[in-house]
């Protein structure tokens, strides 16, 4: 399996090539081609590796080189190739490949074309370092690296103030999570003496639950930041300032899912702590619901999808919190595909509409761009959870699992499902159908996108249709990584701990086989309800936005407070801005003036002034008049003698 090193380094090579020669020699088409080749090679390689693992179910641990030595522990750059990482790697590389191809069209004519592909390649490299890591530090390396790439790409059009701000916000908010994550790593190291997953897992039985919980929660803090869960979600919608392929790749398919992946990766740690799992569940559920409500009322096409991403990530976390790690990972995979599709579709729309973002100003462009419309519809249906699209096969099991495990969670996820269907079709109708609200000037130029953009759409749409039927394959495929009994690298004690930790999900029976599952949902009460909910959402959107039977503005006015709450995104941004941005900045300024300038420098400069002042005072003793001199001498002599004669 030595060839696996090609996977991460092929994009790196592409990055270096483009980075060094991009502007001078490669320029527009070549840079993109190099990037596509780089990522394609790693996609092919990872598929080969995937096949291998799928066949054998083994895991491979390659140590490439020693990065850092800490005491007796070597932090190595390494590759852990097991089903989980193989799946994630495949998702990353394959989705990336198509998005890269799409981007060659999307970025056409941009003066920073090579830079874009350099950044993208860098991102893929970092993402692969993350997914392939066998230890937490390399994971953190990738983790921060994708943060950097995300920063660079969000701020790609850095001449825009909004983009620059969004980029910075994304990085800093991520850093909040990373702070916790790093502390988690440190705690883990101090506790376990190692940071290799496999060694950590096997040492879990030796450590008290409290510390495990602390480690898990701290690591989860990182995941919250990276995967933009409540309360660190605010950066993701703003991150839509970046070019759309970036949104598709980083802020939908791969990077934001890294948190989900990470939780699955260190599943035994989470499983060993009930509190940690509950926290994951709670945060996931809340995010799934709240983000959906936020998405409900937005008007920015990309932001709507971004909120949907938030929400779907919430579903994944909820799945993991429920103990259904495989379902979570499957949803991750499917979400990567259909969300990438949605983003690319919206990117296609944006190209057609000259980067017009407001859905309220679109409409009736479906006929002009049928491929986009069609593929977008497929993506929307998948998101809404309509069979036979992949979203149905990945999302419904989670909701069903929640129903069996925790009613409270179920209620939220169920409501979320309705909202999801509603807002995505609201978007769909407003964009492609409904009334024509488009600026006539733009209207003239609306056209279908070129093939290098439509082909990825078609491929992804196909995948959306097909992938759901591989449900059983995926679930079984992931077993050696996520099912305690099948995990070869776990010791028996750990296995039992993990098994007990996942006890909540033991009684859940969800059909792995896609057709059985389909049949089951079409027959069981719960399945019908869920399907009905999705359809109801679509229907509601249809009624309001296509048929215009109900005026959305009136609805908004009817539920004024709620509408405002949703529209202002539950005031998260406002509060954060007030406290952390404005408050912190103002407080810093104040502290600078008071603390540094007044107090510390006051003391420093004050002592200089005091010296000068006392210099002036002492100077007065030099009166110029002999009498004064001798008088002071007399005083001096008298006192000097007195000192010794009297005090001695």
């Amino acid at each position, binding site marked *: 399996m030595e060839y696996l090193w090609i996977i991460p380094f092929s994009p790196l090579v592409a990055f270096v090539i483009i980075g060094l020669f991009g502007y001078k020699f490669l320029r527009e088409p070549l840079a993109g081609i190099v990037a596509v080749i780089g990522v394609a090679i790693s996609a092919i390689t990872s598929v080969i590796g995937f096949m291998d693992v799928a066949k054998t179910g083994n895991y491979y641990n390659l140590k490439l080189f020693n990065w850092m030595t800490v005491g007796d522990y070597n932090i190595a750059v390494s590759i852990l190739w097991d089903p989980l990482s193989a799946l994630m790697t495949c998702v990353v590389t394959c989705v990336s490949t198509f998005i890269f191809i799409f981007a060659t069209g999307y970025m056409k004519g941009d003066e920073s074309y090579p830079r874009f592909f350099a950044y993208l390649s860098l991102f893929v490299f970092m993402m692969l370092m993350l997914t392939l890591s066998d230890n937490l530090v390399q994971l953190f390396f990738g983790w921060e690296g994708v943060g950097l790439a995300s920063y660079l790409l969000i701020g790609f059009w850095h001449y825009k103030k909004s983009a620059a701000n969004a980029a910075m916000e994304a990085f800093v908010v991520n850093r909040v999570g990373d702070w916790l994550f790093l502390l988690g790593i440190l705690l883990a190291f101090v506790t376990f003496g190692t940071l290799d997953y496999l060694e950590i897992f096997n040492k879990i039985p030796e450590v008290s639950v409290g510390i495990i919980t602390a480690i898990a929660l701290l690591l989860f803090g990182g995941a919250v930041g990276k995967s933009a869960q409540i309360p660190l979600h605010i950066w993701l919608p703003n991150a839509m300032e970046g070019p759309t392929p970036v949104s598709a790749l980083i802020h939908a398919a791969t990077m934001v899912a890294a948190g989900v992946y990470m939780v699955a990766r260190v599943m035994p740690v989470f499983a060993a702590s009930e509190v940690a799992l509950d926290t994951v569940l709670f945060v996931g559920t809340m995010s799934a619901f709240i983000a959906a409500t936020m998405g409900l009322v937005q008007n920015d096409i990309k932001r709507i999808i971004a909120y949907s991403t938030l929400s779907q990530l919430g579903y994944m976390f909820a799945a993991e919190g429920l103990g259904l790690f495989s379902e979570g990972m499957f949803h991750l995979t499917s979400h990567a595909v259909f969300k990438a599709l949605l983003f690319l579709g919206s990117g296609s729309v944006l190209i057609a509409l000259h980067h017009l973002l407001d859905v309220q100003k679109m409409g009736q462009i479906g006929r002009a761009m049928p491929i986009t419309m069609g593929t977008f519809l497929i993506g929307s249906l998948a998101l809404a959870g309509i069979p036979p699209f992949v979203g149905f096969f990945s999302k419904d099991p989670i909701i069903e699992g929640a129903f069996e495990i925790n009613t409270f969670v179920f209620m939220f996820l169920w409501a979320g499902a309705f909202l999801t269907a509603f807002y995505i079709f609201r978007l769909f109708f407003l964009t492609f159908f409904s009334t024509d609200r488009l600026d006539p000037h733009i209207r003239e130029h609306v056209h279908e996108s070129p093939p290098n953009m439509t082909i990825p759409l078609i491929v992804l749409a196909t995948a959306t249709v097909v992938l759901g039927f591989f449900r059983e394959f995926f679930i079984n495929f992931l077993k050696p990584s996520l099912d305690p009994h099948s995990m070869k690298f776990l010791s028996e004690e750990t296995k039992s701990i993990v098994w007990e930790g996942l006890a909540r999900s033991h009684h859940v029976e969800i059909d792995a086989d896609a057709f059985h599952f389909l049949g089951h949902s079409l027959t069981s009460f719960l399945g019908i309800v869920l399907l009905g909910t999705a359809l109801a959402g679509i229907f509601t959107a249809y009624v309001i936005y296509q048929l215009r039977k109900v005026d959305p503005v009136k609805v908004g006015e009817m539920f004024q407070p709620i509408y405002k709450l949703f529209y202002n995104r539950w005031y998260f941004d406002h509060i954060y801005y007030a406290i952390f941005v404005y408050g912190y900045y103002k407080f810093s300024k104040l502290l600078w003036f008071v603390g540094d300038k007044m107090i510390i420098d006051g003391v420093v400069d004050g002592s200089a002034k005091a010296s000068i002042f006392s210099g002036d005072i002492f*100077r*007065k003793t030099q009166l110029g*008049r*002999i*009498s004064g001199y*001798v008088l002071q001498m*007399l005083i001096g002599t008298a006192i000097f003698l007195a000192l010794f004669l009297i005090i001695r």
Partner: protein
Amino acid sequence: MVPYEYYLVLSGLLMVLGFIGIIVRKNIIALLISTELMLNSVNIAFVAFDMKLHDVAGQVFVFFILTIAAAEAAIGLGLIMAIYRMKKDVDVTKIAELKG
């Protein structure tokens, strides 16, 4: 005989008076006179000690003190003359251009 301490105290008294003389007088010639007084007061102590010690070294020293007092007086008076010529004043409060 008078105790030697008396001579010493007298010497000290004259010394301090000379000191005070330098301080309080406003005429610079008087300052010079006061230093003479100070120097001479020491002579009493020397001679008194001499008598007590049965030695004459102190008186030899007195001789040197006298020499030096004379020398200082000579230079001081020369300076006073020069100052007077330039400044047309012998007020100590005016002889205070150098200060601070």
